[in-house]
């Protein structure tokens, strides 16, 4: 008995040290293979990325550009979070079960894990958000740069860049990323890391150029490949999709957050008070629902200028009705439950009963409708961009990349296809995630 406890103690100490140095490895030592592998895998991925782009991370803080700083902070926070999570899990191993009991949360987690597709959906959603946050470090090109249109426009996917190697009279070699014709002078932007600001421009007169050879920069890890091709202005599609994900995903998230909050609040009031209040509110909902949504949004946006906050606000303000109906129905049945009467009998105030006692019981449908709604909201936002009333160019959003690809759909299919796939991927992932959540949260579907 004693040796056994000593052994577990030893094992635990080893695991803790392992977790300190390699997130997740401690859990693998303790036998939690799956979780350990997950943590190890994801932290290895993020670590590799951080190491690869370490220069950018440092430069981000120095540059003070908001999106870069956010990306750098996100990267560091994710790494720190993974490390801390694995350490806490390791420290708590073998403890905490038994006396705490099985909460709803625990049951939901195990149920959710059983649904493999939903887990895949969740991972994809998380990966997409990570991509959006890390955009500036991930994107191989500046999404808005339009240098050298003639050379770069309509490049098909997987085009490597041909960079001319310029040999000057003095023997200096410049691997030129960009050539600018200035009349009797030519300036070469040499290949360097644009993000770090180390791309010296050399301007020489035409006489100084001795020889130009073209070279193919074909190494696959070399960033200067247009993986998904370029558009008619020579802008890199992949970079635009990555930058566009920030717009599309944040519109989806924030607009749904607004819509759900509004809908929940209004639905709760209508459902709880019932009678006249309910009637007035629900007829109002019917009225708003009777408008074609897209038309309503177009009108509202056309009245003002299409700015991102306005689009978010309008999408939020036109998306709450479904949730309001759903929540009203939930509250109508929940308020008849005896625990509500019991709460009244304890002397609690009405707002407290509605928002603290009844609403948490309706949390499952709220969460599910939120996740399912994100997909459709992203679609509407993309539709708006496609119609030209969304986020305005040159800012990239998935919708307006598709819009730009429309001109040459047969000649340059890749422009509209890839952002379209990104939308499909996001919407499907969100729906799978939402479906899984619903199944996990609904006690009636439990076995």
């Amino acid at each position: 008995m004693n040796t056994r406890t000593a052994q577990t103690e030893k094992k635990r100490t080893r695991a803790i040290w392992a977790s300190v140095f390699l997130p997740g490895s401690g859990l693998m030592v303790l036998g939690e293979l799956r979780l350990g592998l997950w943590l190890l895998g994801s932290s290895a991925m993020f670590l590799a990325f951080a190491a690869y782009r370490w220069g950018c991370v440092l430069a981000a803080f120095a540059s003070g550009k908001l999106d870069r700083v956010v990306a750098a902070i996100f990267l560091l926070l994710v790494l720190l979070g993974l490390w801390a999570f694995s350490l806490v899990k390791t420290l708590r191993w073998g403890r905490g079960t038994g006396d705490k009991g099985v909460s709803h949360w625990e049951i939901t987690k195990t149920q959710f894990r059983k649904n493999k597709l939903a887990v895949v959906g969740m991972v994809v959603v998380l990966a997409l958000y990570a991509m959006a946050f890390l955009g500036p470090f991930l994107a191989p090109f500046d999404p808005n740069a339009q240098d050298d249109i003639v050379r770069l426009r309509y490049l098909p996917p997987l085009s490597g860049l041909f960079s001319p190697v310029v040999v000057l009279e003095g023997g200096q070699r410049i691997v030129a990323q960009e050539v600018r014709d200035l009349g009797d002078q030519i300036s070469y932007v040499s290949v360097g890391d644009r993000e770090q600001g180390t791309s010296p421009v050399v301007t020489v007169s035409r006489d100084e150029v001795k020889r130009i050879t073209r070279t193919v920069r074909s190494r696959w890890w070399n960033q200067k490949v247009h993986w998904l091709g370029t558009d008619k202005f020579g802008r890199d599609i992949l970079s635009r999709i990555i930058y566009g994900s920030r717009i599309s995903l944040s519109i989806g998230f924030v607009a749904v957050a607004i819509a759900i909050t509004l809908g929940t609040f209004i639905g709760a009031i209508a459902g709880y008070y019932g009678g006249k209040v309910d009637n007035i509110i629900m007829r109002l909902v019917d009225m708003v629902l009777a408008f074609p949504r897209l038309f309503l949004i177009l009108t509202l946006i056309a009245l003002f200028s299409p700015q991102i906050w306005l689009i978010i606000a309008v999408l939020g303000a036109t998306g709450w009705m479904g949730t309001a109906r759903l929540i009203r129905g939930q509250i109508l049945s929940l308020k008849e439950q005896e625990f509500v009467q019991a709460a009244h009998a304890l002397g609690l105030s009405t707002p407290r009963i509605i928002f603290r006692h009844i609403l948490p019981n309706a949390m499952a449908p709220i969460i599910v409708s939120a996740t399912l709604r994100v997909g459709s909201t992203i679609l509407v936002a993309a539709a708006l961009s496609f119609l030209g009333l969304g986020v305005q160019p040159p800012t990239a959003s998935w919708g307006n990349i598709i819009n730009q690809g429309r001109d040459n759909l047969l000649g340059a299919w890749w422009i509209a296809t890839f952002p379209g796939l990104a939308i499909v991927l996001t919407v499907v992932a969100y729906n799978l995630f939402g479906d899984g959540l619903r199944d996990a949260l609904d006690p009636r579907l439990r076995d």
Partner: protein
Amino acid sequence: MGKLLEVKDLKTYFFLDEGVAKAVDGVSFHVDKGETLGLVGESGCGKSVSALSIMRLIPDPPGKIVGGQIILGGKNVLELEDKQVRDIRGNEVSMIFQEPMTSLNPVFTCGSQIEEAVILHQKVSKKEARQKAIEMLGLVGIPAPEQRVREYPHQLSGGMRQRVMIAMALSCNPSLLLADEPTTALDVTIQAQILELLERLQRELHMAVIMITHDLGVIAEVASRVAVMYAGKIVEYAGVQEVFNTPRHPYTQGLLISIPKLTESKDRLAVIPGMVPNPLAFPQGCKFHPRCSRAIAECRKAEPDLRELVPDHWVRCFRA
């Protein structure tokens, strides 16, 4: 003993589309400090509505207290502001409900539900409230209360949940407890335990109880006085011994006869013929006359008053 609660001529009506349902129609009774009053009757006779009226928990609309007085500790509850009523609820007067399965909020732990009332009424810190919750759970006989406070209602059995409900109701030391069929949903052995617990707590905390039930066995066990209700009115009101030994109203007599006795062997149980009248269309005259074997012509015309036949024994019947 001083009167803790006095209900005078209480009238609670429900205004429905089909008409006015007089669920409670002129009910008067009182409760002394520390005693137990039994409210007995069939389903729909107005006993629960009377209790909810005392707490002012009648859903409005469609319900409304249209008349009468409810005097609790010298104040008329019906004239108080909402805020003052909330201060009374759960503090001076508490209530426990029939269904322990649904009376606890499934998303909170037992402890946090008890703590909420304590924090609200006694203005103590979270830590002290947790201490109080553990103490209360111990008091109602829940083993290992330190662990149970952290458990969710679905992890407890029906009897345990009813104990938690009682702990919640008693956490602020109320002077009056309204127990609305607290044992109906429990099986018989648990029933006995819960009743015993209530009696013990009543003694320890010097609290008055209104025990609402349709089970005369429960009344015989715990109550000192009984009010028998029928169709929104009290038909017999007396000490528990009086009611059981010399019931005077035919309805009470019928209720007592219909209890099966172990000492006699009978093929069929005695029943009161007929149904509880529809509250939207009560019969003319005495509301019990269609089901009464001793009804006379007068019973169909006029409704009898509650008369004091013997000191402290009130009956609403011409024939008594």
